[in-house]
């Protein structure tokens, strides 16, 4: 068995139950620590799999470049509060597959927080961004969805407001809401919705206008240098 598979098994059958058991004994906001620990533990198998297969130098550099573009992208578009980060993460997932999408999302969330400040939300952000990139890679692998401007725009919008945004709101719920019940959870999601919506609109605009040209650039690199060809979408 591969090392990363063993790690996955250990996480699911040992670490998660132990965390849940110990977490239920913690006082106060113990559920925040439990939730964050679970998020971190869920990411371990992905990172282990990535480390375990000794990625080639080319692949590492391309992922690093996509992360850096996702972070530095906001300096290119001179509109305040316009974030292209989700679109770039999803495009990386679409072009280079689910695993690369996850790595680009998680690493760019983590690295950008070194520039803008780490917080209690960092693990949640890594998970949410990574999950967004992975979902994109998974949905578009093997031609499951056509890589047309309209399809990627609709996908980007739905993924942002229904998947990445709510995942980000979860850290709010655990940290800021004082009593967790259905009412306060719904209130937190509703109050997060305008932000998610504006992010979704940014993603749609980038995808519609530049999604296809950017994808072409990424595909061209793949063809020109024969990279990441063994990617078969999980």
């Amino acid at each position, binding site marked *: 068995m591969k090392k990363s598979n063993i790690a996955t098994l250990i996480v699911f059958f040992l670490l998660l139950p132990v965390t849940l058991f110990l977490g239920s004994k*913690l*006082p106060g906001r113990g559920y925040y620590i439990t939730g964050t620990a679970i998020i971190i533990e869920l990411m371990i198998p992905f990172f282990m799999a990535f480390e375990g297969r000794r990625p*080639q130098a080319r692949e590492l550099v*391309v992922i690093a*470049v996509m992360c850096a*573009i996702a972070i530095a992208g906001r*300096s290119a578009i001179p509109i305040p509060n*316009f974030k292209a980060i989700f679109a770039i993460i999803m495009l990386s997932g679409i072009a280079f597959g689910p695993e690369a999408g996850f790595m680009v999302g998680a690493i760019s969330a983590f690295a950008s927080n070194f520039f803008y400040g780490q917080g209690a939300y960092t693990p949640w952000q890594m998970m949410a961004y990574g999950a967004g990139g992975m979902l994109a890679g998974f949905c578009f692998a093997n031609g499951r969805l056509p890589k047309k401007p309209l399809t990627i725009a609709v996908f980007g919008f739905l993924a942002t407001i229904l998947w990445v945004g709510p995942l980000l709101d979860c850290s709010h719920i655990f940290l800021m809401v004082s009593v967790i019940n259905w009412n306060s959870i719904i209130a937190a999601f509703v109050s997060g919705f305008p932000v998610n919506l504006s992010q979704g609109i940014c993603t749609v605009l980038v995808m519609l206008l530049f999604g296809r040209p950017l994808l072409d650039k*990424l595909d061209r690199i793949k063809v020109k240098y024969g990279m990441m060809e063994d990617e078969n979408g999980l």
Partner: protein
Amino acid sequence: MRDAFSKCHPAVNFLFFVGAIGMSVVIQHPAYLLVGLLTGAIYYLLLNGKRGLKTILGLLPVFIILTVINPLLNTLGATPLFYLGSRPYTLEALLYGAVTACMFVAILLWFGCYNKVLTSDKFTCLFGNLIPSISLLLVMVFRMVPNFIRKTQQIIGARKSIGKGISETATTKEKLISGGTVLGALTGWALEGSVVTGDSMRARGYGTAKRSSFMIYRMTWADWILLAVMLTLLGVTIVAACSGQFAAEFVPAIELAPISWGLAAYTCYLLIPPALHIKEAIQWHISRSKI
């Protein structure tokens, strides 16, 4: 002058923040939370100077909003202050809101300190052996981000000089389209460069053997002593927490555990970095006044 605690080994710094932030999430007792908040604010001020004061004042509205919002969502509690329609606005819920807000602000402050102390080089130094590929990835990203921002400015400049620049009065649509073109140019240039970098790395033997890493930080005896003191104080605090000294109930009625030795241990633990900072400042002052 640099902060004394920042000069310690990164492992010591990291463990301290895990303890400080972890404890402040678990605690609900107002006395302990206040200690966490005050020590966090002191250390934040020592690290950031006058600018830090501005941030702390900026957190005040957050504190107030989080406090007053809780009774609106949570109507449990024995002493209603007034009624909004048929929903009671209770004192207990208000206090519980204040406790939540206190915890939230304390965590923000401690994370602010974390960002100042545990810089990216320290993080990669700590985890470089454990996750070599990912820390290499991180180091490359840290290098590329400023580089790409510079390149973006160059592309914008080049576009300006051929008459494709955008003025301040341009519409959002024009700005968006121009920004996208710049982004496309940046992507093409960066990806092309990335493959060259990757090939160059391979040609120099990347991936042929286990990577060794250069450690700039060493555990000195002072670090070991500090670590021992830290772990002792943290251990005492955890024992106190397990024996129920941190217990506090707000709804439906306020019930607080009496304050005892756990508070002293917790305060001492959180005061380690500010104390080191102040000790260094005093020593510096004395040695300067001797000249």
